[in-house]
């Protein structure tokens, strides 16, 4: 069988193809969606939701290549469990079972692998999920980088839950569950040996419980998304382009920890594009927004929640940032890789 020639601008994969920004999106559309082409995949959600024998299920997968594998506030194993649990949660699902596959470089310390496995078990217990299947491969020294982990997960979705960008309406409020950029900056600081007065910790955390209380509090949640790779800006842009809605964000409502902000200034990075691993954004009907905000603030993982913006009738498919000085500008997708291998 002849392979169709891919319509891409590049002959080789660049790091930016894995950034979660516009090149990643293009790669997915040009190569994977074209090749695999089906209705469920084409929705381009964090996970697929489908019906089997009357049950609504959610299924997702994620690979973890973070460097370093241990960082302030977490490690690659914990991240691999929470990442997939969170992707399921963003489908409105209750996560049930995970798989875990390991690609390990020859020479990797068994003791370290043991540490990672134990922390994965602790993480799975915290989310009430079980790791029920897996795979192990070893590659020659120098052909991998310590360890890569893939997890897949399956969860069940209540019938009345319907999370989809197509449900978004003008007037919807946008709630962010806490401070941004903690994870990316924690990993970067560890990688670059940067020491701050107070240590910046990753926000790695499972969001299933927070999502559960939110779904109990409101039947009008339209979209949930965890702004991981590519940060808040990438997630908002994805939602805007899928829903063709205009999104207005108020910069002064976005919380950033003082030390994270300082690190961003030093590195010249924009926190809006930096990965989070324990935060979510929620689009909900305006009449439910205040109640949702209160419920979220009552949960430890949502205590810093804020309404950061709303869906508007103008600027369809775009994200507009109202800056701290009151002017407006576009908040676009980043095209370059700010920080490779952050999750």
């Amino acid at each position: 069988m002849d392979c169709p020639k891919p319509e891409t601008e590049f002959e080789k994969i660049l790091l930016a193809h894995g950034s979660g920004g516009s090149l990643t999106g293009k790669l997915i559309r040009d190569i994977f969606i074209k090749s695999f082409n089906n209705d469920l995949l084409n929705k381009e959600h964090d996970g697929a939701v489908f019906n089997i024998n009357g049950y609504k299920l959610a299924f997702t997968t994620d690979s973890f290549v973070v460097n370093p594998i241990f960082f302030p506030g977490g490690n690659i194993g914990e991240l691999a469990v929470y990442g997939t649990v969170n992707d399921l949660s963003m489908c409105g699902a209750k996560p049930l079972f995970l798989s875990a596959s390991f690609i390990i470089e020859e020479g990797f310390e068994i003791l370290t692998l043991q540490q990672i496995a134990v922390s994965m078990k602790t993480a799975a217990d915290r989310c009430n999920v079980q790791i029920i299947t897996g795979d192990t491969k070893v590659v020659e020294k120098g052909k991998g980088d310590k360890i890569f982990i893939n997890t897949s997960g399956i969860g069940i979705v209540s019938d009345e839950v319907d999370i989809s960008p197509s449900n978004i309406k003008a007037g919807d409020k946008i709630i962010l569950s806490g401070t941004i950029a903690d994870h990316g900056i924690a990993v970067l600081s560890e990688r670059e040996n940067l020491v701050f007065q107070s240590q910046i910790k990753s926000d790695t955390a499972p969001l299933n419980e927070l999502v559960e209380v939110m779904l109990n509090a409101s039947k009008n949640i339209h979209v949930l998304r965890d702004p991981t790779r590519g940060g808040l800006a990438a997630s908002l842009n994805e939602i805007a382009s899928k829903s063709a809605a205009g999104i207005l964000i108020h910069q002064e409502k976005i919380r950033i920890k003082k030390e994270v902000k300082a690190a961003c200034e030093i590195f010249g990075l924009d926190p809006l594009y930096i990965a989070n691993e324990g935060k979510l954004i929620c689009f909900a009907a305006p009449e439910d927004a205040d109640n949702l905000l209160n419920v979220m603030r009552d949960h430890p993982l949502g205590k810093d929640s804020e309404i950061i913006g709303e869906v508007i009738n103008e600027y369809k498919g775009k994200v507009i940032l109202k800056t701290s000085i009151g002017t407006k500008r576009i908040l676009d997708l980043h095209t370059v890789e700010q920080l490779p291998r952050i999750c």
Partner: protein
Amino acid sequence: MKFLDEYRDADKVKILIDQIHSLKLPPINIMEVCGSQTHTILKYNLEELLPSNINLIHGPGCPVCVTPIDMIDKAVLLAQMEDVIFTSYGDMLRIPGSKSSLMKAKASGCDVRMIYSPLDAVMLAKDNPHKKIIFFAIGFETTTPANAASVLTARKLNLTNFYMLSSQVLIPPAVKLLLDSELIKLNGLLAPGHVCTVTGTNWCSEISNEYKIPIAVTGFEPVDILEGIFLTAKQILINQYNTVNQYKRVVTKDGNLKAQETIYNVFEVCNRNWRGLGEIKNSGLRIRDDFRQFDAEKNFEINSVTSNEDQRCIAGEILQGLKKPNDCGLFGKDCTPIKPVGAPMVSSEGACAAYYNYRSVLKITENE
């Protein structure tokens, strides 16, 4: 955050905007020389607040953008050599050369590494004695002291495997070239605060006197830029032409003397090609002969490269302030940050990238 939040303060911005609007100005051209200032203007969309008779012209102060294409080609050639680890600041990786870029070289298997400081390259050399570590030294007076310090450190450590490809430039000769140009009439300048931190402000005062043009040495936050514009515009109105220092929290009259000494200890002034502007006399820094063992151009066979620039790119006119990025036929279509044709579309300080990333909202407004 002290020294940042107060310069992004909405109330202070409002006061300055009111002050600027209260001046009864004729149409004027003010050039912000530095790319970081351009970036702030676009990122905060300051033009939304300014009176329409103030035309902000974006200057040549983006070190990545003015690096000539033959230096990129030389960098790629060096990166492709055996046993070389080529190190550079991140933005340089994506600048298109005649045929390739450092990023494409990296994807093809060359050892190209992004670093944050030239001293990281020196440490790489120390840790990898069997490799040749080459650092791509670009930038204005702001970055040259650290580059000079890295050469001095390499000497102190007796390293024989550390090299520098120098494409460093000096701002004052480029500013004079633009003021000498008959193609554009500039009424005021915002001088680059970072450069002046090192150089001091004496060269600005000389230019103010020689060209009878008001200059505000200006910082990089919205309040800085607006105050710089106010201090310049106020003078234009009454035909004054002094250099004033808006960025007093960092810049002094004489600058950082220790940094200046370090620069000229290692480097000497030379003529230098600027992308889009051509050769400017005494506008570059090269490695002194005493330090020739560290000079990549003197230790590797790279001087025979032949370079071809994409003739459709109007970077030269943009860097001279003659055209704005959206005047270019390639802008946003054939030239985007994903596939840049010219350097100003690559660097975060480049005018084209700033327009592409932040300005498209205005186009949407116009469409509605």
